[in-house]
């Protein structure tokens, strides 16, 4: 199938767009009251009778053979129940779920060898966490240290020490995609900008770590409560690792204190808790502490070294992009290279060029594994693109906003198929830029910049970035990399079940992870309110466990608002039909003559003839003889909403298909001051405009933009999961890993533009990854602009004050 088979369009766009009652209004979140009184229901708040606690001994060395482990002293400690090592997991379980090469396997406790600082070596299970930690201290391990691979480029050299003997090398994966003719595109260019860039490792780093409680339950069912993992989507893989039938593993979603990618598919913690519960026959709680999370989370973020080239005509039109990237995946490749599929979904950004080459090499090194972080690798590509556009503009003497205008895909060109095959559904890139420019007086700041430099010797920089914000992933992005993928999955559904109880009150059951700090309950109840004319706060929301759950994929890739809205609306349509059929039978009118308005079913044009939900519910539950013939009792409907628009890649991969078509867009403008002598930076103004289609709740979308921008700022200026050349981890506490505080994060001024998607219910697009898609580009550009006279050019994140000072001093030394 080739890509632009256009699916049915919804009616939510254009002038006929219906007016909404609840959608689009600033509303308080329904999740908030419980959180404000400190009853978030997090995993650490849960206590089961007889529950034990686990603590983990972690490797202090990056690469070693485990010669011996002596656990005898630990077992003597009163209150220590058991100690488990790699020998135990090897004997009693299969490797963890794995979306990377089959020859790179992983267990929740290292088997035979440790491959990074922080890898689990032994688990101590005890009556409480204090005693478990005593047990950890009492274990004696002998390591035979091996040579270390720290630099991913060195890891690919032929003589590099190999981490996984079975795999044979440290090249986890390699592929080059070429769309169009990049050689010709660069040869025909008037200017080719070349660069080498490094995006350093940061991570979602939520304030709550990952945790799980596992309990051997009735009927041989293992129950796992956890705040991570995509529940019904991947539960069966966890069961397989634990060697139990999937119907004997019941997973219960537990709300999380933030994820930002860090809990997406995060399986190491629940797998380990499950294993420990099975082995001890008791409920076991394993909560990562912050040190565990920093050095051993499932999801350190992207760590990429780029060699890139971009061609321009003398008028500033981009002719093509050539990307050669080595990505440092760390010691395991649990999540495959989907983060680069993400980059390819918006490989050309909002720009029109047609020629693209993308070469990826995934390197395996002695570091913690890489996974998901807000943007899932597309934010990195955004930064690379914008770095190049910025340089092109500077070299050609074109203003940054002007070069973008010249290259934008225009509103009339949608749906627009990009090189590689993904489709952008809709957009108004010039409109978003105009909106941002209208919120900030660029001319004023440009004059101020000159004046302050001249009169006060201060250095002001202005940075503009215009980037894509793809939303609603399709699972093809995880496997189109392979010519013969083992499991070419094409589903990524979301489900909802609406129940109206016998009194007319609403229950809403979601089939995904519980709240992660996003607003699933606010979004879903807003949709329900829109459909039934009830108050969102009156709905009770719960989350299905996997023994009951319908297909669901959960938050990730800014998909949830779009997908849950589709699921709730689908279920609402079915339930409304049933209500109308009951009312039609009772009122003896044709169903077509009835409508549902403000929680009543009424005759069109004669609203005094109506039935309220309590009356209809009573009929549905208690008066079967009053129902239309053949109708079943009860008022419950479920709906599974599939991805609204996805197509298969072509067999030769000359076209990757449509896999991320619901395309948001954003423009950020940062005005910063940089001190050339200290390298310190300060924001003077910051404007962020996002287009996420129809906005469900401006306030909560604004929250995502702001929170995402703060994280983008962290990745740009402060946060680094640093390893030294010997593979030692240097960021194992919050004193080393610098999460921005309120002092570092500026007030962002937020604007929204709404270009509804033609393919989703209500025209919603995802916006959950927010500002992190854009901020690194805007801030990098502003810093370059401030110190242009010193040749400042940001090539590596995070940008450290020392690097700024070194650049300035070197330039001054040259005179």
């Amino acid at each position, binding site marked *: 199938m080739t890509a632009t088979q256009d699916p049915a369009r919804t009616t939510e766009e254009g002038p006929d767009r219906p007016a909404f009652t609840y959608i689009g209004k600033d509303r308080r979140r329904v999740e908030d009251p419980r959180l*404000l009184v*400190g009853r978030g229901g997090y995993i650490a708040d849960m206590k089961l009778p007889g529950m034990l606690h686990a603590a983990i001994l972690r490797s202090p060395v990056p690469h070693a053979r485990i010669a011996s482990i002596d656990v005898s002293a630990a077992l*003597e400690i*009163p209150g220590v129940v058991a100690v488990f090592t790699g020998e135990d997991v090897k004997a009693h379980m299969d490797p963890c779920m794995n979306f990377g090469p089959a020859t790179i396997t992983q267990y929740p406790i290292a088997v035979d060898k440790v491959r990074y600082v922080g890898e689990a070596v032994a688990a101590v299970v005890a009556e409480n966490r204090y005693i478990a930690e005593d047990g950890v201290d009492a274990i004696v391990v002998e390591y035979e240290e091996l040579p270390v691979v720290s630099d991913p480029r060195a890891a690919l050299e032929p003589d590099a020490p190999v981490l996984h003997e079975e795999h044979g090398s440290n090249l986890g994966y390699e592929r080059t995609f070429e769309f169009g003719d990049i050689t010709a595109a660069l040869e025909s260019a008037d200017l080719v900008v070349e660069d080498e860039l490094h995006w350093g490792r940061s991570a979602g780093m939520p304030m*709550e770590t990952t945790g799980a409680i596992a309990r051997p339950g009735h009927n041989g069912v293992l129950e796992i409560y956890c705040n991570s993992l995509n529940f019904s989507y991947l539960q069966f893989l966890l069961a397989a690792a634990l060697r139990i039938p999937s119907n004997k593993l019941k997973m219960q979603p537990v709300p999380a204190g933030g994820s930002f990618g860090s809990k997406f598919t995060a399986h190491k913690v629940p797998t380990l808790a499950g294993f420990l519960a099975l082995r001890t026959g008791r409920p076991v709680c394993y909560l990562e502490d912050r040190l565990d999370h920093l050095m051993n989370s499932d999801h350190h973020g992207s760590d990429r070294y780029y060699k890139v080239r971009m061609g321009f005509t003398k008028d500033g039109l981009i002719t093509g992009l050539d990307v050669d990237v080595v990505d440092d995946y760390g010691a395991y490749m649990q999540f495959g290279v989907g983060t680069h599929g993400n980059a390819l979904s918006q490989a050309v950004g909002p720009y029109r060029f047609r020629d693209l080459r993308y070469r990826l090499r995934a390197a395996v090194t002695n570091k913690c594994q890489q996974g998901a972080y807000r943007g899932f690798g597309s934010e990195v590509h955004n930064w690379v693109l914008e770095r190049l556009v910025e340089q092109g503009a500077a070299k050609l003497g074109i203003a940054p906003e002007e070069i973008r205008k010249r290259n934008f895909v225009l509103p009339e060109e949608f749906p627009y198929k990009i090189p590689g095959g993904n489709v952008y559904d809709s957009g108004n890139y010039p409109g978003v830029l105009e909106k941002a420019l209208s919120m900030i007086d660029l001319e004023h700041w440009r004059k101020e910049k000159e004046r302050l430099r001249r009169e006060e010797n201060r250095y002001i920089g202005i940075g503009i970035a215009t980037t894509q914000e793809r939303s609603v992933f399709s699972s093809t992005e995880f496997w189109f990399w392979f010519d013969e993928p083992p499991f070419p999955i094409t589903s990524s559904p979301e489900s909802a079940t609406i129940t109206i109880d016998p009194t007319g009150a609403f229950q809403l059951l979601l089939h995904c992870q519980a709240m992660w700090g996003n607003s699933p309950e606010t979004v879903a109840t807003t949709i329900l309110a829109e459909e039934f004319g009830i108050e969102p706060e009156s709905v009770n929301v719960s989350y299905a466990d996997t023994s009951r759950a319908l297909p669901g994929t959960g938050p990730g890739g800014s998909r949830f608002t779009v997908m849950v809205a589709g699921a709730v609306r689908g279920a609402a349509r079915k339930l409304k039909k049933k209500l109308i059929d009951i009312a039609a039978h009772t009122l003896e009118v044709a169903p077509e003559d009835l409508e549902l308005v403000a929680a009543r079913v009424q005759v069109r044009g004669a609203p005094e003839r109506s039935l309220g939900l309590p009356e209809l519910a009573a009929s549905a539950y208690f008066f079967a003889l009053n129902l239309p013939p053949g109708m079943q009792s009860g008022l419950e409907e479920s709906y599974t909403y599939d991805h609204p628009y996805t197509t298969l890649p072509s067999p030769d991969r000359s076209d990757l298909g449509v896999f991320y078509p619901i395309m948001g867009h954003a423009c950020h403008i940062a005005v910063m001051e940089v001190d050339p002598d200290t390298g310190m930076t300060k924001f003077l103004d910051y404007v962020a405009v996002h287009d996420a289609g129809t906005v469900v709740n401006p306030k909560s979308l604004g*929250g995502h933009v702001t929170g995402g921008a703060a994280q983008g700022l962290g990745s740009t200026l402060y946060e680094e999961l640093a390893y030294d050349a010997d593979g030692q981890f240097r960021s194992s506490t919050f004193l080393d890993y610098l999460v921005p505080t309120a002092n570092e994060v500026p007030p*962002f001024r937020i604007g929204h533009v709404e270009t509804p998607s033609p393919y989703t219910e209500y025209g919603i697009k995802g916006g959950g990854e927010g500002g992190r898609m854009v901020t690194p580009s805007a801030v990098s550009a502003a810093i370059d602009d401030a110190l242009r006279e010193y040749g400042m050019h940001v090539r590596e994140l995070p940008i450290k004050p020392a690097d700024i000072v070194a650049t300035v001093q070197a330039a001054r030394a040259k005179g």
Partner: protein
Amino acid sequence: MTTTENPAATDTRTITLRVNGREITRTVSTRTTLADFLRDDLDLVSVHLGCEHGVCGCCTVLLDGQSVRSCLMLAVQARGHEVETVESLSADQTNLHPIQEAFAEEHALQCGFCTPAMVLRCKEIIADGRTRTDEEVRREISGILCRCTGYQNIVNAVQNASRRCASTGQEA
């Protein structure tokens, strides 16, 4: 190392302190942190542990009216003192304290993990009834990390709460 005879693991003390206005007497292991004591012994699970090494501030409680990191204190050190957790403002989801209301109105929370700490810190700083600039508020809340909000709405909530408490004359 022999830890079988570890006095730290077995030593206990009986302490009396006030928690959220109530006098409490308990026997605790001397090495138990104040945070774990509040969470595990008194079920005050609003005290959240984000790092357990004194940086994130999620475990903030008020000790004699001043914010402290309860992960860095032992329970025995709180003997004879007055401890407040967010439950002291309101533990009733349907009847929130004005500061909690301000946080909801300004969308000053997303995952809620830093929220009890931020609410308590807000109570502490607005108690003087002074008008503050946003810049000052930022400095004053900068000891607590929030990973979700980007802080601006928390700053707005502190200002909102300060107005509410001033206008109702309610003591923060």
